[in-house]
């Protein structure tokens, strides 16, 4: 399956590279959501013009490289930016016929549920599988892949450069603390967390933060469920909430939990409410995530 995708990518890349000079008629603007459609004469027949995205992260990436005009449909979970062509298509319970009814010339997915990739390929629909990133390099690589696949290679390069620069700036601007600071990242009120071996964990590692969930995950699975007593007794310096929208958690609700009220993160105002989507997708808004962490560190305890 992976070989097939790579093969597909190579084909797509080959189709595009020969025309790299003629596809960049529109001046690329990074993260532009309202790029005017490219003049039809300059568009090559080989660049996909009917893209279907079943991955909210891929949708954000496509929008950021200016490929939205080439996108005809996105899945029901894709909600950023706000002007994407949302449909009832589902990336979790894919209906192949429904996807095919949009007559796509490229389908971007983040997982291969129910043999979706194979089914689409049997209909001769090209598929690009961009699974959840594990490292930052994965993020940049996926943006590049999309750039090549949509004939917006330059925009993709510009975007990744911009992202790297922004992140470097943010990490450089934070003073390393005297003692390493600890954090707890909450995925849901059942105290599911992430370890530093995950992508999300690697973001915090940029700032040298230490994850209290690491001790709970000897197998390196990445997503342990923590015991309440443990979280309270280790008393992390920061609490990051990634369940503010779907589970309605907030600094107040955390403070109201029995036994949590006296934690130093609560009393010191270091319970950070993250945007659920920003904290769970690996697209261009990773920068926003890094920014949120950097801003939280500005509240770090003195000394």
């Amino acid at each position, binding site marked *: 399956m992976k070989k097939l995708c790579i093969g597909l990518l190579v084909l797509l890349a080959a189709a595009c590279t020969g025309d790299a000079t003629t596809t960049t008629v529109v001046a690329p603007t990074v993260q532009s959501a309202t790029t005017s459609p490219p003049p039809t004469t300059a568009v090559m027949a080989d660049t996909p013009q009917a893209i279907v995205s079943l991955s909210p992260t891929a949708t954000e990436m496509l929008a950021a490289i200016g490929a939205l005009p080439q996108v005809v449909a996105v899945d029901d979970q894709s909600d950023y930016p706000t002007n994407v062509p949302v449909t009832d298509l589902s990336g979790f319970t894919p209906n192949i016929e429904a996807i095919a009814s949009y007559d796509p010339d490229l389908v971007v997915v983040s997982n291969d549920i129910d043999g979706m990739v194979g089914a689409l390929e049997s209909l001769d629909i090209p598929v690009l599988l961009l699974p959840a990133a594990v490292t930052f390099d994965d993020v940049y690589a996926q943006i590049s892949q999309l750039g090549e696949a949509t004939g917006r290679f330059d925009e993709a390069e510009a975007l990744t450069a911009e992202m790297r620069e922004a992140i470097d700036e943010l990490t450089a601007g934070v003073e390393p603390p005297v003692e390493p600071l600890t954090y707890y990242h909450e995925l849901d009120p059942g105290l599911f967390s992430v370890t530093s071996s995950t992508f999300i964990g690697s973001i915090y590692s940029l700032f040298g933060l230490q994850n209290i969930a690491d001790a709970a995950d000897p197998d390196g699975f990445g997503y342990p*469920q923590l015991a309440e007593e443990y979280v309270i007794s280790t008393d992390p310096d920061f609490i990051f909430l990634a369940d503010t929208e779907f589970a309605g958690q907030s600094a107040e609700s955390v403070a109201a939990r029995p036994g949590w009220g006296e934690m130093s993160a609560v009393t010191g105002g270091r319970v950070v409410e993250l945007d659920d989507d920003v904290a769970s997708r690996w697209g261009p808004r990773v920068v926003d995530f890094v920014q949120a962490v950097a801003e939280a560190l500005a509240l770090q305890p003195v000394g």
Partner: protein
Amino acid sequence: MITTGSWSRALRPRSLGLGVLVLAAAALAGVALGPARLPIPEVMAALFDSLPGVDTHHSLTARQLDILFELRLPRVALGACVGATLAVCGAAYQGVFRNPLVDPYLLGVAAGAGLGATIAFATAAVAAVPVAAFVGASAAVVLTYAIGNRFGDRAPTSLVLAGVAVASFLTAAQTYVQQRNSGDLRVVYSWILGRLGAGWDDVRLVLPYVVVSAIVILLHRRLLDVLAVGDPEAQSLGVPVARVRLLVVMAATLGTAAAVAVSGLIGFVGIIVPHTVRLLAGPSYRSTLPLSILFGAAFMVATDLAARTLIAPAELPIGVVTAFFGAPFFLALLRRRG
């Protein structure tokens, strides 16, 4: 000569005493042990200190005291309530349906609660999850009864069949809602696997229901023994069988729905505990019901202790731990029968 002391159905004080002892031991262990590793002598001292009129010295910090009194103690209390309820309601269902493999989830309680909770999670009304689960559980049983009465007679088999139908339907509905709201999959799943503990609030919430439920069930213990000879014979002995069945099922559903609302779907307790109790003290419901309360409470407290210490500092969902006990239990049962 026959004396009243030779009647076997009476609850022997020995079994009762054993139950109390086991529960006390489990509760003590549940309070003393945990991932936060509080020093046990200090814990004991702090517990004694909290009794009115007793003043002992202990060296626990404010945070440790919080863990003890705001986390562990309510968790043990909730575990005892939930375990006692699931066990006694399971025994009650086994009595009215004359089937040892029946448990409170049979008539659709689990499926109804699951659907209610899933809808609450999907509409982001997270605070309403316990109410939604309770309503869902109760509505499912009402539906089962309505269908069983309308399309069948009021015999136990008809109700069981209706329950299976209702449960399947509601589970399908729940799966549908889950798939449509795939972002909530994990939180629903972890609710389903069961979790004890959001403090004293949950205990206060659930206590009135479990007390009422247990009392009504205990009051019917003699009649449950009479039901053992089957509906027609019980009727001919003057027992209003359909009414007894309805009252006991209502009480058992009330208790189970309340337990499920706060702790999710914890399985096997309603079967394992009553069976074990019967092995210990005989088949009469006059002993099975009260002993199920004690041993059910102890069992839940003990499994919760395992759930939060076995892979500490990570936590196992309690439904997984009870399932781990469940499979070998049924195997042992099979061996005994073979």
